[in-house]
């Protein structure tokens, strides 16, 4: 590791903050031009600035899981095009191949070289989740897929802009292969705008401070992160830590797959070995090495590097291994359509478990340990003919709960820990884009993993079709029969994800009577519980679709929880009176805690645990 001596401290701070500001402006450009709620509302995108060899220098303050693949993307562009004359000033590459650095085909990246004085000196990038990229099902990933070729257009690095000239032939070729081409086309142009802003601002910076200073600061922020991260690792105990996470259902059968991790902390380095993980699956839950790497970083960045800039410096102190052909380092043609919420998420969940056990064993850093944070996504895709008469698919990204920490409860409705600007779409926005009428959107009672500190509650919501008679719902998630968000040190896991359709309901009568149901139990009908992955299922006029995400994992023994906090949770409708009694051992009487009754009940529960 080199000490950065090319600049004085003042210039270093000015230039490094300029780099942050450029990523902020790039992100603003993306949000302002994109018409997709996945970008504008759910913030499921990120931007970055990298050095000429692909080292990630400054990451935007959005979804880190999306940005963790950028070094791989640039490395693949350099391999395909060579670092010589083929990469020209004014070029921009479009790329989404999971075997060329992308996470899954839906995450379309546009990556742009930055030239200064006719030399390649840096890169800017933007990656965002698309509404569709072609393939066998509207929205692209399908639980029925058996090969990556069924999951949409797979683009190796292609020049979308060549020497400043937009390549309309490439653009038209992409749009010919996707549904909702209007939205996708606008999003692609938004990526070009984003990189144009990045290229221009970086060029200004190079012109103002000079090549040597600017590049030495870009390298300097990487070196600083590496130094700080290695120093932190030296403060943590030498250890081997094991963790297992699970994915239920591969799209074809309800098999449970295990993701096995052995993490080793030795001196100032950390290694992650996923040997022992199950072989790649026949369905769309696999991830390539891109998901493996960004999944690990999705745990290390927030838990260990909460005060260290997230960049290549941290990645340098980490080694990652998984057998080729395993679920977390799959070979073609294995499908990877939902790598972003399955394989990669499970890699991250196992890494969170291991990192938190390591932190929890440290006298200095135990406060950073916590339960797993929103371990399973359960976003439904609402598809069919929308209220405007167009064929459409809308991915409604809602939110689970945060893992409880060693000193506080997890945030309710937290979104992902790897997203530093978490956001979920407004219901009104969802209703604008999708032919659906939402009935309620609320915290699911008891979904936060119980513990001394409670995991955050997940959101549950329900909707009926609206403005169209041709509406289906499909979904891919995990954690329906085994928890996606495990607890820690005696804390319970977060609640399972749950999706169901209630058919032949009385919803019309309820709405005509001027009432709005506040829970699914208030609606009569026949319940059909859906599996973790379900293909598009049509909604009749009287059908109600119900969906819950996974709550966050709890921390510590629930019998150690302050009874007043349990009472407050019951008042807030986040914990049920039944769970207050059976899990927390808290006796409530007339709106307050019965302290002696609680003490007696907790003693009884402890005796019961030991069979006394």
């Amino acid at each position, binding site marked *: 590791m080199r000490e950065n001596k090319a600049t004085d401290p003042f210039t270093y701070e000015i230039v490094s903050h300029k780099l942050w500001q450029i990523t902020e402006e790039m992100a603003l450009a993306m949000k302002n031009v994109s018409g997709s709620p996945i970008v504008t509302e759910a913030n499921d995108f990120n931007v970055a600035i990298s050095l000429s060899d692909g080292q990630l220098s400054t990451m935007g303050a959005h979804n880190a899981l999306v940005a963790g693949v950028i070094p791989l993307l640039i490395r693949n562009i350099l391999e395909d095009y060579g670092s010589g004359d083929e990469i020209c000033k004014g070029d921009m590459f479009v790329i989404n191949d999971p075997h060329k650095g992308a996470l899954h085909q839906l995450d379309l990246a546009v990556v742009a070289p930055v030239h200064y004085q006719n030399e390649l000196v840096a890169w800017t990038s933007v990656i965002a989740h698309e509404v569709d990229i072609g393939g066998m099902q509207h929205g692209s990933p399908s639980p029925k897929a058996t090969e990556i070729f069924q999951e949409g257009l797979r683009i190796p690095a292609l020049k979308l802009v060549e020497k400043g000239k937009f390549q309309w032939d490439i653009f038209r070729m992409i749009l010919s292969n996707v549904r909702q081409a209007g939205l996708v086309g606008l999003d692609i142009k938004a990526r070009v705008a984003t990189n144009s802003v990045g290229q221009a601002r970086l060029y200004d910076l190079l012109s103002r401070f000079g090549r040597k200073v600017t590049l030495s600061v870009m390298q300097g922020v990487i070196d600083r992160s590496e130094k700080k991260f290695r120093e932190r690792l030296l403060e943590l*105990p*030498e*250890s*081997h*830590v*094991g963790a*297992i996470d*699970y994915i*239920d259902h591969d799209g074809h059968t*309800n098999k*449970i797959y*295990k993701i*096995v991790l*052995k993490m080793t902390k030795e001196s100032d380095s950390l290694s992650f070995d996923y040997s*022992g993980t199950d072989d790649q699956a026949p369905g769309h839950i696999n991830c390539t090495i891109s998901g493996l790497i960004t999944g690990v970083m999705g745990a290390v960045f927030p838990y260990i590097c909460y005060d260290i800039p997230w960049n290549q410096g941290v990645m340098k102190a980490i080694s990652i291994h998984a057998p080729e052909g395993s679920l977390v380092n799959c070979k073609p043609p294995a499908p990877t359509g939902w790598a972003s919420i399955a394989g990669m998420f499970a890699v991250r969940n196992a890494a969170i478990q291991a990192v938190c*056990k*390591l932190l*929890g*064993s*440290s*006298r200095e850093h*135990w406060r950073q*340990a916590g339960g797993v944070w929103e371990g399973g996504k359960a976003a439904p895709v609402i598809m069919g003919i929308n209220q405007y008469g167009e064929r459409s698919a809308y991915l409604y990204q809602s939110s689970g709960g945060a893992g409880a920490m*060693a000193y506080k409860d997890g945030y309710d409705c937290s979104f992902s820990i790897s997203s530093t600007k978490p956001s979920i779409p407004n219901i009104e926005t969802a209703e604008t884009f999708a032919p659906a009428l939402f009935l309620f959107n609320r915290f*699911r*009672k*008891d979904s936060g993993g*119980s513990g*001394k500190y409670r995991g955050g509650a997940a959101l549950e919501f329900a909707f009926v079709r609206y403005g169209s008679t041709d509406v289906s719902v499909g979904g891919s998630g995990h954690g*329906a*029969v*085994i*928890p996606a968000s*495990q*607890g*820690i*040190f*005696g*804390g*319970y*896991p977060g*609640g*399972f994800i*749950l999706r169901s359709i209630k058919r032949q309901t009385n919803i019309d009568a309820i709405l005509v009577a001027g009432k709005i149901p506040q829970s699914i139990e208030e609606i009569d009908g026949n319940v059909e*519980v859906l599996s973790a992955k379900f293909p598009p299922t049509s909604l009749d006029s009287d059908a109600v679709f119900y969906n819950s995400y996974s*709550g966050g994992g709890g*921390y*510590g*023994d*629930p*019998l*150690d929880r302050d009874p007043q906090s349990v009472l407050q949770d019951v008042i807030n409708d986040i914990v049920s009176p039944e*769970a207050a009694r*059976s*899990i927390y051992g808290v006796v409530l009487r007339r709106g307050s805690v019965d302290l002696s009754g609680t003490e007696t009940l907790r003693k009884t529960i*402890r*005796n019961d*645990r*030991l*069979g006394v």
Partner: protein
Amino acid sequence: MNRISEYLEITDRKTGKRDVCCSKCGYILGPLSKGIYSGAVTRNMIPNEISPVYTKTDQTLFRLYYCPGCATQLKVEPIVKEAPRPPQLPEIEL
């Protein structure tokens, strides 16, 4: 004393070797070399019987680990009935 987790630490006061000790009640669970939960009381429970928020399933169980001295719940481990935890995988080796 070295910390292992929220409720466990390492002590050498009983055997002169590194033992796992409950930090709440002082109970010695056993030698660290055997694994931090080797001396814990365990029982398996059906998730749905703990809370309806864990949907009914016949595929999985929760294994609960308790301190034999004070019954503190040390760990809740999801178990797949047909695929037990790999025996060589450590919880944490310090």
